[in-house]
């Protein structure tokens, strides 16, 4: 197949892939050739035999949400018996546990609470900054920020600036799902549009903040829509350069309104990770998703384009609500990295080395 050979050649020559070439690779590429090409690209970007990770804790400050995404098993409607909002004391306790284990960051995300005002978020951030200045807050995915902006009737840029001034460090890439509105209508009709998601990240980058980008796939999207997602990210990255990393994971259907969709296991995951590494030629880092794929597949992905094992998480509530529970602590992550022939290195959110 000529088109496929041509796409291989371009990938091998580190040339930029077109949408059509991306789709060709995803659809027809040989799994091993894709892995090898992606690994070559990874070595070009990161020639050292090093795999990084961060000691970070996941904290979900609330599960109360009015967006009712059909793929989500985590949220509770306001008024539900299991609805919660974490107090400062609860947050503090969780962070103490992080610090005991050498943690340097919290991934702080929650549902779209119907009535918490911006000042509530600012108070939470100030509490964290006052008491735990050394901990970076990697918090509030684009839909949360847009939700707060909507409640306050403020431009998202102003909301981000206020959150930053209160102590927000960086913004996680969650809520991107697939950045194609046809798919978003099926998954999450009330959630941020793809343009809305891009806008939040553009604003954050414009303010000098860094963020990550994600993709949740293996549900209603076509292969062309997966590539369209990558294309939108690549374009914004050309414009701002603000993304530090890309993380992709597979939709976990159990306990969700979309549980009839068959769960994708790892064959598609590995192929999509490899093609993402090749397509996103302007994003430096690709993280493994051991949270959805498990440690064993994460290890395999280190030979298919991935250069980072992500974070220690400590607790994980969203994917586990959908029936998938894997755990990895720093020691296990380091063991995995070493056994796979790389040197483990602890990093911060900017991918700078930190002391273990």
């Amino acid at each position, binding site marked *: 197949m000529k088109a496929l050979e041509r796409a291989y050649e371009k990938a*091998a020559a580190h040339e930029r892939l077109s949408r059509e070439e991306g789709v060709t690779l995803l659809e027809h590429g040989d799994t*091993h050739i894709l892995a090898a090409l992606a690994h070559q690209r990874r070595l070009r970007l990161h020639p050292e035999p090093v795999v990084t990770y961060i000691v970070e804790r996941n904290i979900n400050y609330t599960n109360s949400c009015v967006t009712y995404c059909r793929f989500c098993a985590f949220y509770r409607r306001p008024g539900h018996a299991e609805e919660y909002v974490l107090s400062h004391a609860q947050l503090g306790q969780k962070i103490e546990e992080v610090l005991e284990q050498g943690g340097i960051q919290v991934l702080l995300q929650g549902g779209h609470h119907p009535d918490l005002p911006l000042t509530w978020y600012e108070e939470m951030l100030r509490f964290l900054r006052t008491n735990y200045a050394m901990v970076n807050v990697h918090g509030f995915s684009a839909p949360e920020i847009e939700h707060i902006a909507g409640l306050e009737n403020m431009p998202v840029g102003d909301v981000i600036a206020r959150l930053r001034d209160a102590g927000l460090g960086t913004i996680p890439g969650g809520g991107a799902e697939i950045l194609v509105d046809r798919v978003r209508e099926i998954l999450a009709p009330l959630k941020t549009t793809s343009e809305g998601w891009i806008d939040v990240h553009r604003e954050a980058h414009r303010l000098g903040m860094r963020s990550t980008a994600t993709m949740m796939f293996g549900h209603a999207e076509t292969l062309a829509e997966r590539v369209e997602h990558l294309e939108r990210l690549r374009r914004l990255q050309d414009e701002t350069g603000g993304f530090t990393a890309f993380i992709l994971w597979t939709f976990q259907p159990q306990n969700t309104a979309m549980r009839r969709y068959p769960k994708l*296991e790892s064959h598609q995951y590995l192929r999509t990770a490899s093609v993402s590494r090749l397509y996103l030629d302007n994003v430096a880092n690709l993280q493994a998703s051991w949270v959805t794929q498990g440690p064993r597949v*994460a290890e*395999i992905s280190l*030979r298919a384009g991935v250069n980072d094992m992500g974070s220690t998480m400590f607790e994980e509530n969203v994917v586990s609500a959908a029936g998938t529970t894997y755990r990895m602590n720093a020691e296990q992550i380091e063991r*995995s990295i070493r*056994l*796979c022939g790389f040197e483990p290195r602890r990093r911060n959110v900017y991918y700078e080395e930190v002391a273990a």
Partner: protein
Amino acid sequence: MIPVVFRTSGIRDLLEKALAGERFSREDGVRLFLTDDLAALGWAANLARERRHGDVAYYLKNRHINYSNICKYDCMFCSFFRSSHEAEGAWEWSVDEVLEHVAPYKDSGLREFHIVGGVHPDLPFSYYTDLLAALRREHPGVALKAFTAIEIAYFAELTGRSLREVLEALLEAGLDMIPGGGAEVFADRVRYKVCREKADADRWFEVHETAHALGIPTNATLLYGHIETVEERVDHLLRLREMQDRTLGLKSYVPLAFHPENNRLEKLGAPTGADALRNVAVGRLLLDNVDHVKAYWIMLGIQVAQLALAWGADDLDGTVTWERIYHMAGAKTPEGMTEERLQQVIREAGRIPVERDAFYNAVEREAVPA
């Protein structure tokens, strides 16, 4: 032709060999295990796999019967065994209890019972023949794949009969096939350290060769990821290949990952996913005379097993439904999987699911009335 991206691979010469269909040497085997070019290794193994099986991947409807976990031996990697009836968590099923457990499967389209247990200190040999005869009587269409070489070697010890006599008695009672367990790692050094009480490698081979001479097909396993060296893995495979050249009695090769929970080798931790694929791939490449390589999902996890379908495996094993040996060692997989789910997993990997029987014949499906 070797794809361009692999022309600079450190194992390019071995890819050429795979392409030419040449037999691999011991030294080749060691290099295949040691390469960090997992993609190139997968490419070569997949080539060998597709030459035999095209895009087909097999599964079957089966059920495990672990009739007892009481065992005379105390292998360091085992979380399943109990030393006596009195030990906590010990069980022993009578023939009637086994029948009761599997009664719901009558006429369900099940193709195989996989029957293995501990090396039980005091069940009489008649228990095993009665068990097979009863299952054959109650489930005439279900193949009986029963008793590892270790159990069978013990039956000979127990009865004072030869292996041939024991196997003939089992055959008479209904035995169809022998599973590959108990092979562990053939190297004496390893067996002495982790399972010195059980039958040694020579005896394992004697059981399998005797079975083959009687026309009983068998499988073979390798328990990897504990204290064995790469050379010991390769020697293990070559010894199987050497027997297979003579007997052609092996149906499939099944690499088994060591599971580190609730046993005395816990501190070793689990082998990596890369190692799982490596074992599947090198097995496929070295065992050029064995038809099938199994990605035993119960033990690899369905995710790695699915990837293994592109690294040399052509079989996912079965629906299983009840499994204790690996689950007592911390396996996080479900204990069973529906036929529909197995088919989905195979299709998603770009393969064509084909239901097989215990002997790897494709099951002819009756046309479903419209």
